[in-house]
């Protein structure tokens, strides 16, 4: 039997890329092109509508004004200092809560927990990410703020602290799952090398594994921060939204207002074309600039870390390690570490001043930190593991509290009729069938829009382009969009799709808006998944004479499928739970017929919940039941994602 060699090999002629190849390249290029254009189109749109406020009120009075009072009489005041302060305060507070908890929890899951515990904890934490933000806000408003009021004896619990706690909880899943991945990816050789030298488990973790995973952990923190900065619905329900700078500056119990909260509460009612309207777009642009700054700093830090710990990215390809030495001498680094520790401690300590319980923790912490060196490795290991387990338990407890609160109140109202009938009496009775269907339509459309485009763009960028200007521009653009609050997408969808393209408030406008929102996530996760495939596999295929597309489609994509699918389904979960982007573009409150064309509006679960919770008195039971259905739906998507991933992880090795 002869080997079925391709014809040109037999003929011995060298034929350049075939037309099929060129066509595919073109398709992929256009995907990338569309993605880029869309991204910058949105940015340009925001800047265009935000510009008038700068030209009219002046840059200084906008950026440095300390008063935000759009209804001020006789003069409206648009000073964003209190809003920026609020955003920074709430975000920093959230990070102070989420970073230690998240990293500890990631260490626990990745390196300490026995497989059985890990199998439970990891998906549980990912479920935390699946809870829609309206549900968090709902929980925060009713349970958390009340708890803060009673615990700290303040007149109102709606505060910086409440915002930070809610955002911290919301950032936790991101921080945990990304750090956990990074920690699991540190190759076994490193930990074996360390253990073989007689280092304890904790010494190995703290000195070899965590430093090795530092790029990934930093990325996790940044991603979490992005989520915290961009969150709208939950944060506006719990911070009190008073546009003031906390006084004194560390007063965590003061109400604050964030940039996103401002957009969230004022956008719906503001008169189009008024200065207030432009000011809100100005706020959106400032938000983008902050996101951009955070991303730039983050990219620089991560880049530097990657250089230092180059092969510490062992999950990825065999990127040859950079030959650069570390920037600081060991002693300087030791000193820098102490300074950093003090800084972190004070960062945690500062907002916590005056809060007895937390101060106690900080005291205990400092005590341990001071005497750390005098303790035997065994004792430090015990203390460290105690803190780590405590952190993990805390995270799980939070999850349990939120879920049980909603389930206990919502499950009794669930019934077959509730799931299969349209709402009656403004949703106080009847069911939510059209809302369930509407949500599925919206999500299917969004994914149908974003998945091909995003995957195509990602393949082009990662497989057909060397790292260069274009990839950098796209990466910056996607990261910017990733940090853009979802309400901004809603705004864009309203002004561009609904008004300019005359789609009207419609299913299709909502689908595209949601699709745009998840596009960056799809591009990003796909790129990550493709990068995770070792270069050697590509080389192996190309060396056999396969074309670029053959290599990509047969060798690179298959092992990346679980990553891509996970990304896609996580996006679905996010799209299903979002309120802000569909608020102005796609939803109606009540509907008796299912939509018959893409141009008719639909009902959707998150919006239904939002209206029941805020504008319909006396819909308590159905409100919770809707929350439960939304929660279960999103959790279902996540469970599928987790299932697919586990399935493939078991079957893919190299």
């Amino acid at each position: 039997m002869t080997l079925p060699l391709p014809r040109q090999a037999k003929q011995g002629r060298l034929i350049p890329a075939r037309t099929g190849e060129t066509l595919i390249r073109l398709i992929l290029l256009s995907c990338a092109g569309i993605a880029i254009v869309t991204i910058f189109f949105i940015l340009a749109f925001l800047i265009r509508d935000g510009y008038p406020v700068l030209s009219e009120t002046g840059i200084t009075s906008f950026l440095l004004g300390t008063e935000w009072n759009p209804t001020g009489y006789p003069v409206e005041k648009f000073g964003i200092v209190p809003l920026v302060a609020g955003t920074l305060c709430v975000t920093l507070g959230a990070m102070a809560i989420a970073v230690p908890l998240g990293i500890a929890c990631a260490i626990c899951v990745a390196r300490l927990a026995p497989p059985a515990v890990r199998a439970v904890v990891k998906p549980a934490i990912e479920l935390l990410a699946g809870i829609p933000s309206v549900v968090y806000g709902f929980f925060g408003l009713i349970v958390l703020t009340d708890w803060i009021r009673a615990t700290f004896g303040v007149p109102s619990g709606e505060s910086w602290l409440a915002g930070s706690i809610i955002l911290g909880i919301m950032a936790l899943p991101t921080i945990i799952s990304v750090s956990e991945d990074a920690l699991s990816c540190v190759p076994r050789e490193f930990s074996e090398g360390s253990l073989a030298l007689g280092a304890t488990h904790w010494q190995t973790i703290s000195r070899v594994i965590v430093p090795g995973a530092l790029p990934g952990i930093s990325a996790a923190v940044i991603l979490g921060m992005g989520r915290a900065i961009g969150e709208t619905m939950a944060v506006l329900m719990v911070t009190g939204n008073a546009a003031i700078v906390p006084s004194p500056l560390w007063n965590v119990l003061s109400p604050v207002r964030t940039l996103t909260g401002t957009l969230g509460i004022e956008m719906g009612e503001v008169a189009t074309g008024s200065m207030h309207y432009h000011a809100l777009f100005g706020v959106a642009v400032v938000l983008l600039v902050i996101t951009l700054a955070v991303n730039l700093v983050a990219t620089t830090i991560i880049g530097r870390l990657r250089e230092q710990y180059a092969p510490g990215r062992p999950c990825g390809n065999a990127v040859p390690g950079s030959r650069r030495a570390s920037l600081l001498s060991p002693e300087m680094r030791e000193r820098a570490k102490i300074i950093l520790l003090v800084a972190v401690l004070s960062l945690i300590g500062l907002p916590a001043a005056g809060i007895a319980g937390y101060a106690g923790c900080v005291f205990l912490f400092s005590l341990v930190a001071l005497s750390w060196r005098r303790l035997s490795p065994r004792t430090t290991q015990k203390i460290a593991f105690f803190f780590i387990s405590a952190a993990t338990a805390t995270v799980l407890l939070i999850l349990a509290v939120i879920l049980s609160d909603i389930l206990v109140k919502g499950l009794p109202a669930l019934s077959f009729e509730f799931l299969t009938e349209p709402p009656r009496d403004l949703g106080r009775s009847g069911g939510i069938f059209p809302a369930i269907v509407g949500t599925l339509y919206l999500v299917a459309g969004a994914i149908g829009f974003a998945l091909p485009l995003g995957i195509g763009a990602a393949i082009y960028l990662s497989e057909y382009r060397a790292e260069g200007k274009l990839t950098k521009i796209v990466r910056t653009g996607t990261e910017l969009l990733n940090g853009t609050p979802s309400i901004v997408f809603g705004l864009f969808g309203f002004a561009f799709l609904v008004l300019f393209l005359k789609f009207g408030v419609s299913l299709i406008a909502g689908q595209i808006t949601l699709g745009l929102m998840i596009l960056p996530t799809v591009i990003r996760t796909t790129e990550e998944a493709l990068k995770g495939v070792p270069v050697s596999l590509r080389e192996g295929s190309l060396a056999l004479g396969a074309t670029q597309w053959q290599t990509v489609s047969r060798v690179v994509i298959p092992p990346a499928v679980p990553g891509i699918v996970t990304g896609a389904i996580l996006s679905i979960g996010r799209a299903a739970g979002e309120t802000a982007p569909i608020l102005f573009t796609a939803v109606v409150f009540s509907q008796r017929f299912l939509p018959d064309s893409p141009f008719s509006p639909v009902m959707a679960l998150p919006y239904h919940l939002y209206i029941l919770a805020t504008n319909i008195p006396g819909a308590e039971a159905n409100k919770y039941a809707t929350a439960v259905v939304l929660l279960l739906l999103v959790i279902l998507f996540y469970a599928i994602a987790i299932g697919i991933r586990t399935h493939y992880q078991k079957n893919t090795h190299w």
Partner: protein
Amino acid sequence: MNGMRNPASIATLLALILVMALLACGCTQQAGSQPPTTTSPGKTRESITLSGSTTVLPVAQAAADAYMNTHANAEIMVIGGGSSVGIQAAGEGTASIGMSSRDLKAEEKTRYPGLVSTVIGNDGIALIVHPSNTVGPLTLEQVKGIYQGKYTNWKDLGGPDMAIVVAGRDSASGTREFFHEKVMNKEDFVAGQLEKNSNGAVKQTVAQTPGAIGYVGLGYIDGTVRAVPILVNGTPIEPSVRMVLDRKYPISRPLILVTKGEPAGLAKDYITFLLGPEGQKILEKEGFVPLGQA
């Protein structure tokens, strides 16, 4: 890599995309093929969209439900979003009727000169406090003082010794704008005011905060909060539909439907229905104040 696995993975990917596609198609088909059960043959279905203020939304929806029950060929869909979204939608023609809980602003009038407003009812605004708060009736001057930050403790107003937590609506809200003009005489609110984006959220805050005061539409008053009577010329007036109708209660504002030009077709029928006795009854049931004889 294992050679056998690649086709399997690709197949999975394809299958997934296929499922998505099928889901999408299936959905539209199902939607398309499902005949609207209430449509009587021979007559074409007419449909209009209302968009805008979330305050007006419950009334508009309830009226739409009632109207559609008797007119099988009509389809009326109600979209929230906010007063300005509604006015813009009506002005741009993306919705047949805009709902607003405030008057049109100058910018909006210049931008959309053809808009016609119809008042369909009134919304009484009640001041609410925590049920445990024993404070007596307040004058409008005192309410203004509270919202300006002049009073910081309930004992200054004859109530318990407790810090006042001021809760109100966001600065783009029609309710707040009205309150700002009517109660505050356009003077600034205290900076530490908690700002909420809906009546429901204000009520929720007041219901769980002993020291709080807030303002909401009459429909939101229930057992979880206590409505404070307003002293008018020495007489305490309870916030109620009756008192607003009798023009005794001082804080109420109009609910407005906006159309591009005079309403016509189904929009006209719907507005007429809403202004009629049945529509006004629905309005009252949702906690708003009917137009009355005046």
